[in-house]
């Protein structure tokens, strides 16, 4: 019997052990960091999956031993990597249809992304108008966050193209100091948005 991913996360939610152990694994600031990252990663996911599901599912996988933390990788970085993998798996599942993909496949998909440094992109090249529109809406929402900051928007456009920081600076004629300054502004806006639970 297949269960939706969010139901699996919900199933884990009542376990207080996961939450409490997570408290031991990360600091309070890390928890806030995790929350802002989860809210960011939840962008563009199906409406029945929220940021809380991402966090709970990631913690569940780590604590159950389904995902092994590599040596030298901090817990917060590892959890963020797991959430990113879950995001990819949720998106892939949404595209292929919940009824067509086994839960086992999701586990395998997420486990395949153990390297936290990898950038997860949808691997299915088949175009999907509905998801393309959804992604465009999310990109527009992110751009609205930085609406008044032309330099940050240029950086985001560069990131969208997969450019490195050096390439973006070179292409946009941004100095290293200005780039770092823009990154700080970007982080501040993202943190402010991520710490609240409101909509854009």
């Amino acid at each position, binding site marked *: 019997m297949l269960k939706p991913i969010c139901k699996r996360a919900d199933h884990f939610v009542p*376990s207080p052990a996961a939450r409490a*152990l997570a408290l031991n694994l990360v600091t309070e600031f890390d928890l806030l960091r*995790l929350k802002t990252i989860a809210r960011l990663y939840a962008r563009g996911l199906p409406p029945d999956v929220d940021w809380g599901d991402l966090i709970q599912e990631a913690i569940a996988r780590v604590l159950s031993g389904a995902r092994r933390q590599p040596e030298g990788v901090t817990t917060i970085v590892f959890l963020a990597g797991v959430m990113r993998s879950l995001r990819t798996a949720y998106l892939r599942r949404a595209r292929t249809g919940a009824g067509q993909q086994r839960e086992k496949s999701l586990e395998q998909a997420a486990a395949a992304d153990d390297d936290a440094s990898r950038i997860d992109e949808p691997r299915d090249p088949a175009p999907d108008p509905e998801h393309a529109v959804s992604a465009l809406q999310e990109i527009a929402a992110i751009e609205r966050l930085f609406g008044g900051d032309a330099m940050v928007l240029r950086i985001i456009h560069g990131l969208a193209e997969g450019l490195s920081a050096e390439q973006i600076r070179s292409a946009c004629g941004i100095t290293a100091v200005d780039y770092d300054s823009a990154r700080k502004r970007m982080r501040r806006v993202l943190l402010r948005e991520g*710490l609240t639970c409101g909509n854009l």
Partner: protein
Amino acid sequence: MRKSVSAERPEAALARIVSALGQELLDASDEEILAAAKDLGMNPGMKGSAAFLGLKYLRHAPPEWWLEGFDAALLARLGMPGREPSELGPVPSLTAPRRSRRPGQKKDRSHE
């Protein structure tokens, strides 16, 4: 550089943006988080801060429930002793309504 990210495959562009911005959040210092919280009128150091909204259960589970049912090898690696089921108290349902304290009533800290 293009003026808009919408011309390319949007899902891939969004994935790259989200990944890069997620890294920015990982790189954010505690001071930056504190400053952002203060911008919002929050005080993360204060118990019950709105900044922790949605994370409250991660923070407030009683310790006697902590280690129930977890992989012994994982707990050992984390330096945490396992417990026998008989040592564990009942696990209350988180879906049950929480009793609110009346003003002046002391908080029950027996489980902490």
